């Protein structure tokens, strides 16, 4: 499949010091897959092997990160695929399906199982599962320092003898062991690495059952026989479906075997328990580091302190991400401003005025809109990367699950919603941290009502114009409404489209580890690049189109097509208290919410006494202003968010729902606020004046 190959023309890494056969590169790349549990340092191994020569996208039709890298080992081109982190090769989570389908359909030439020595027993479970696939396998043993610090000794050769496959000890921080791993890849490229010899045998009764199923399996299945037999015994629905037309004998053999999945797991862990002590000695005393880590967990997840610590840490991190993004964002804005100024100076008569506007406001403005998003998205992915790699993400998810779980929102989804306070785009992209398709879509659909920072800028300005310092109460009210909308929407979605029960909470709390800056930056870089690629092809052209609509035929927004659309829609806006200029500003705000302010400035004029604020106060009644900020806070998410929802969900229906739903909610709220404010007007004015007086005094 073409989607599994990196773009052609990418320079290949050549690592010197390896035995080359003829120096001749074979045309077909050797496919190598990286498999392992989550948080075992798989990405670190991937980054060590590929450097920046990697490509991040989605698996076809799935919202699962698909990372492919290329490198050259001993003159042979190697295509390295980073499979998602999973616990077993069952078909239940999206990640498992993706990993399993790749291993079965693409049959890579080499499988590198990354194993965390600190959690050896549990990690070996997946290795044993994967060995039965019959693909040549190498085990990369990482995090060796942790058991060693606890006084336990690790015997890589002993593990290799038990499993029957080579074991390469590695250190993710220093990259030691990398050369040995490359040697193994080179051996696999030369065809010198045999499939696993099958030294891992389960109990006698189990082996007899496996053999009997193996014998009666339909031969044309095209699956590794032993692996398929075990999966059939486990009651794997996909394998059983393939066996559907199988023989009577096969079905009889399977029917006789009850609670297969648990018995297989039991047998595998028995094998692990009897062999693991040979490779990893038991701790002589309780490990002080382990004790300390557990105490940290006790505090972080404490009944009362936990939620406070979590919210403070996440709020601080989001704020930090924003501060981090601000300087490059300002620099980009300055650069694009300078470019626009230059273009404006160069394009002079005899060029018509519209050409100047097209270049300055349309093209440069459009690219600038996209480009200014990139630092924010990059910063948020740095934040997510740090949270994920340090192991804190799982703790925050665990704590938030207790807070928002009662509303049918999973903890992981809650973190995405907090990120949405900064920017909705990475929040939608963060939905991919959920484990099943249902939770992903659910998480994405809850993001739009979260008021992002761009909306806060506009809301903050308008409320300060009309209410002065007490405008903060209006803003607080909007945030409360936002929280209410998220909870209400979650309840509504849980009762309608998502009637399927959410997964009960079961999350691993991985060991705390210092994130490796290079891994975090690589991750953020590729995710931002993914956004930029998508955005430039859709958002920039759309910006030009909207520019055209706001310029032609009159040459100014109030006489333009967009202005006319606004006037045409004015009767619809009237019950909500929105005049045609507000509608035009809202339409242009679809591109990027902060753009609404510049449209308002053009439409209401800034030349009168008191500038824009004076013009607004003169032209707009207080209930109208309230209705406007309410509508603005919740109406359709910005173009970048809509595009991202579509790209991530691949569902036009869900995207349309997100847009239509927010429009309907915004209209309803604006209607209520407008009429409520008019009705309560005289009373509210006294109250606001009193509050302002109180604040002033």
């Amino acid at each position: 499949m073409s989607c599994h190959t990196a773009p052609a023309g990418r320079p290949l890494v050549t690592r010197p010091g390896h035995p080359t056969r003829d120096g001749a590169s074979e045309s077909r790349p050797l496919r190598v897959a990286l498999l392992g549990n989550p948080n075992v340092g798989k990405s670190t191994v991937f980054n060590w092997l590929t450097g920046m020569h990697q490509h991040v996208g989605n698996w076809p039709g799935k919202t699962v990160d698909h990372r492919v890298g290329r490198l050259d080992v001993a003159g042979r081109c190697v295509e390295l695929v980073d499979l998602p982190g999973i616990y077993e090769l069952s078909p239940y989570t999206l990640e498992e399906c993706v990993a399993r389908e790749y291993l079965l359909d693409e049959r890579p030439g080499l499988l590198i199982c990354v194993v965390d020595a600190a959690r050896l027993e549990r990690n070996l479970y997946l290795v044993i599962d994967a060995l039965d696939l019959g693909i040549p396998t190498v085990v990369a043993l990482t995090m060796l320092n942790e058991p060693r610090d606890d006084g336990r000794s690790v015997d890589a050769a002993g593990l290799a003898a038990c499993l029957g496959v080579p074991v390469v000890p590695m250190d993710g921080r220093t990259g030691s062991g990398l050369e040995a791993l490359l040697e193994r890849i080179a051996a696999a490229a030369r065809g010198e690495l045999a499939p696993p010899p099958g030294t891992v045998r389960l109990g006698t009764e189990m082996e007899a059952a496996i053999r009997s199923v193996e014998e009666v399996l339909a031969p044309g299945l095209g699956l590794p026989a032993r692996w398929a037999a075990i999966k059939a015994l486990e009651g794997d629905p996909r394998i059983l479906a393939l066996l559907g037309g199988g023989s009577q004998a096969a079905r009889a053999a399977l029917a006789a075997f009850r609670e297969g999945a648990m018995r297989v797991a039991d047998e595998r862990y028995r094998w692990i328990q009897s062999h693991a002590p040979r490779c990893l000695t038991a701790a002589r005393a309780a490990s002080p580091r382990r004790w300390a880590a557990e105490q940290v967990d006790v505090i972080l997840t404490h009944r009362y302190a936990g939620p406070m610590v979590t919210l403070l840490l996440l709020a601080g991190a989001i704020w930090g991400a924003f501060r981090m993004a601000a300087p490059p964002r300002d620099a980009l804005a300055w650069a694009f401003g300078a470019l626009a100024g230059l273009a404006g100076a160069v394009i002079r008569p005899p060029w018509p005025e519209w050409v100047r506007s097209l270049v300055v406001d349309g093209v440069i403005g459009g690219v600038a809109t996209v480009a200014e998003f990139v630092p924010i998205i990059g910063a948020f992915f740095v934040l997510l990367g740090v949270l994920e790699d340090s192991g804190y993400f799982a703790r925050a998810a665990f704590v938030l699950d207790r807070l928002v779980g009662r509303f049918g929102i999973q903890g992981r989804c809650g973190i995405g919603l907090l990120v949405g306070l900064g920017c909705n785009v990475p929040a939608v992209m963060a939905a991919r941290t959920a484990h099943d398709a249902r939770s992903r879509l659910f998480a994405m659909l809850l993001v739009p009502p979260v008021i992002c920072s761009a909306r806060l800028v506009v809301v903050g300005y308008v409320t300060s114009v009309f209410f002065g310092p007490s405008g903060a109460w209006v803003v607080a009210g909007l945030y409360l409404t936002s929280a209410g909308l998220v909870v209400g929407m979650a309840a509504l979605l849980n009762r309608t489209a998502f009637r399927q029960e959410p997964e009960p909470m079961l999350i691993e709390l991985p060991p705390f580890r210092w994130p490796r800056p290079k891994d975090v930056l690589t991750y953020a870089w590729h995710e931002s690049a993914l956004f930029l690629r998508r955005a430039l092809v859709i958002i920039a052209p759309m910006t030009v189109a909207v520019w055209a609509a706001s310029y032609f035929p009159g040459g100014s927004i109030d006489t333009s097509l967009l202005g006319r659309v606004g006037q045409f829609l004015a009767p619809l806006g009237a019950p909500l208290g929105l005049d045609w200029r507000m509608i035009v500003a809202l339409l242009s705000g679809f591109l990027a919410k902060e753009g609404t302010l510049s449209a308002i400035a053009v439409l209401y004029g800034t030349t009168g006494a008191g500038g824009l604020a004076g013009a607004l106060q003169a032209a707009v009644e207080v209930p109208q202003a309230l209705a406007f900020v309410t509508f603005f806070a919740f109406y359709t998410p910005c173009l970048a968010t809509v595009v991202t929802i579509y790209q991530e969900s691949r569902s036009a229906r869900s995207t349309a729902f997100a847009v239509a739903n927010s429009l309907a909610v915004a209209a309803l709220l604006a209607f209520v606020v407008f009429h409520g404010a008019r009705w309560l007007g005289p009373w509210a004015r006294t109250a606001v004046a009193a509050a302002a007086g109180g604040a002033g005094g």
Partner: protein
Amino acid sequence: MGHPCIPLHPTDQLAQGVAIPLARLRPGDEATVVRIAGGTRLARRLSALGFTPGVTVRVVARPGAPAIVSVRGCRLGMGQQVLERIWVTPEQ
């Protein structure tokens, strides 16, 4: 919570060797897994994560209904529903 008919803690009334759900344990308690109730996806996932008969588990923290449970050198955050599915015999 404190209803007299519902023993909240193994040491209260239950004799040793009687299986109780993991949800009844307190922080610091250790127990041996006896079985996983039900034969569905969740039971399967729990087995793969290491909850097999005979394995020792320990409750690290219990902030309300969910708990942090240590099994085979890994810590897992588990909700009430999950804790109810794992039957264990507490160790003294």
